[in-house]
């Protein structure tokens, strides 16, 4: 048996190294878990693809809308894909907590915020891939985009920040609900209902007065207006929100709204996680 001594001289805890190293480990772990769960990758993509490639062309044919409407809906479906995918990613947090290795990670000598950020990194990467697939499929279907280099920057910034914010929503909800069933029950209200109000299938100006006013407060409305401004060169969505003349000013304001949404939800989600993780 090992000798027992009343006191011990211990090594100093390991000096802090690059904080990205544990973040990379956590992200790699989450990615491996995600790719072993195909539903997390495929299911969120199905509905937007259906809208962009089947429903939008069908509406165009049935209602005799212009080709621009197909592009309008195709970009609008990005506003469905991002919430669905990030919310599905949030479901992984509950699985991790209930039957995975979350407690082991909580006992690791790393700041616990890295657990949230590692998951976010993977949700972000998978969402980016899915958005790229959606756009590629739309182009292959003959839908025309009108994007300049500057427009792509607006689009990428808006989509990226909105993804970060929506993942924060998913992570926060996952930290607050005890069971996956409860999480799934709330998913439509968070990921789908706002999509119908945010100018995805029609401009928000077509909504009844109160709903049009309400829609202006949805981060998704700002995100979609920016996506269309970036990919289609169409600033009407921004105008419906801000009623200004300068498209750049309106885009900057909407980007600020989405950035605030992303920052606030990231902070809230980390706090919610820490609160739920340590009893």
């Amino acid at each position, binding site marked *: 048996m*090992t000798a027992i001594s009343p006191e011990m*001289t211990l*090594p100093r805890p*390991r000096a802090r190294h690059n904080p990205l190293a544990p973040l990379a480990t956590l992200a790699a772990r989450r990615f491996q878990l995600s790719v072993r769960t195909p539903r997390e990758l495929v299911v969120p993509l199905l509905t937007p693809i259906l809208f962009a490639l089947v429903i939008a062309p069908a509406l165009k044919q049935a209602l005799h809308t212009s080709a621009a409407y197909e592009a309008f809906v195709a970009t609008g479906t990005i506003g469905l894909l991002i919430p669905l995918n990030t919310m599905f990613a949030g479901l992984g947090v509950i699985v991790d907590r209930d039957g995975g290795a979350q407690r*082991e990670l*909580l006992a690791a*000598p790393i700041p616990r915020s890295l657990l949230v950020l590692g998951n976010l990194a993977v949700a972000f990467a998978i969402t980016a891939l899915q958005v790229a697939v959606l756009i590629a499929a739309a182009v292959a279907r003959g839908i025309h985009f009108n994007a300049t280099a500057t427009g792509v920057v607006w689009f990428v910034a808006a989509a990226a920040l909105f993804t970060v914010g929506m993942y924060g929503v998913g992570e926060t909800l996952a930290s607050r609900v005890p069971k996956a069933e409860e999480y799934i029950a709330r998913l439509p209200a968070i990921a789908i209902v706002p999509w119908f109000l945010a100018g995805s299938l029609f401009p928000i100006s077509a909504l009844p007065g109160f709903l049009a006013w309400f829609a202006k407060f949805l981060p998704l409305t700002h995100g979609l207006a920016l996506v269309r401004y970036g990919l289609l060169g169409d600033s009407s969505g921004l105008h419906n929100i801000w009623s200004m003349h300068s498209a750049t000013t309106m885009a900057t304001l909407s980007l600020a709204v989405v950035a605030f949404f992303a920052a606030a939800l990231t902070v809230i989600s980390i706090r919610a996680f820490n609160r739920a993780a340590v009893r």
Partner: protein
Amino acid sequence: MQSRSESIPRVKQPAISVRQLRKTYPGGVDAVKSIDFEVAAGEVFGLLGPNGAGKSTTIGMLTTTIAPTSGSARVAGYDVASEPLAARSISSVVFQEPVVDRTLAGRRNLDIHARLWRTDPSVARSRVGELAETLGLAELLDRPVGSYSGGERRRLEIARALVSEPQVLFLDEPTVGLDPRIRHELLDVIGRLRDRSEITIMLTTHYLDEAERLCDRIAIIHAGKIVALDTPRALLAGLGHELVELRVNGDAATALSSLRTRGIAGDDAFTVGSTLTVPLHDRTAAHAISAIHDADLAASSISTRQPTLDDVYLQLTGARLADAA
């Protein structure tokens, strides 16, 4: 990267030091009620008690996954509240429930632990190989953990905890839910840890044999309080070398009172249901049994035996450990 073995002189500290530690959960449930203890370096220290006694909450506070309500706890001198990263960096924990990534291979589970605990990659690789051999995991490591049996998974979790060469290892009910054969295999594994490494182990259990076999000292915890703390031998010595156990047909408490009045039973005699247990101390069994017969108690059976930790627990808490668990 600095290796675990590069000791830098630091103020000498007990491996674990707990002072007035208390945890009250929301709703007012007092899970741990102001406990104190110290664990020396290299010691195997057991927290023995039934489910709900506060064992896992204590481990949770020491591993910083549960916030203490008041009091302090230090792991290797690091305060778990103000220096949680330092406390976590020199410790590992094996949880009561399975805590693994089931879809990943066993080796990947170990690798993630090594990386998060910042173990040098070459050290981690050789350590994984060594642990796989020692714990009989070599053939399993590249299989998804979901295909492991309960015992294999538990061995993997122990291996994972050891990859980072912790100074302090927490084992929370390490053998609960395992079949007897696997349980004994695991007890061998934990027992070997005592022999081959300078590691402080704190384990919780409600199995008496486990505590007696593995632990240098045992704290018996009951309803959030430590009611006894000593070596197994000293705890048992408190009840003497032998005791008489009799089953009475009438009220056991009245029978006990009668035996006490006659000087046969001392203050440490106790009853559970219809069973009355009397430590003999300096009396002989023959003398005690004769006196019990003279007392004319309606005893349906009478026997003598050596005391066990169960008796210690029973005498201290008034409840049989196996029943409480």
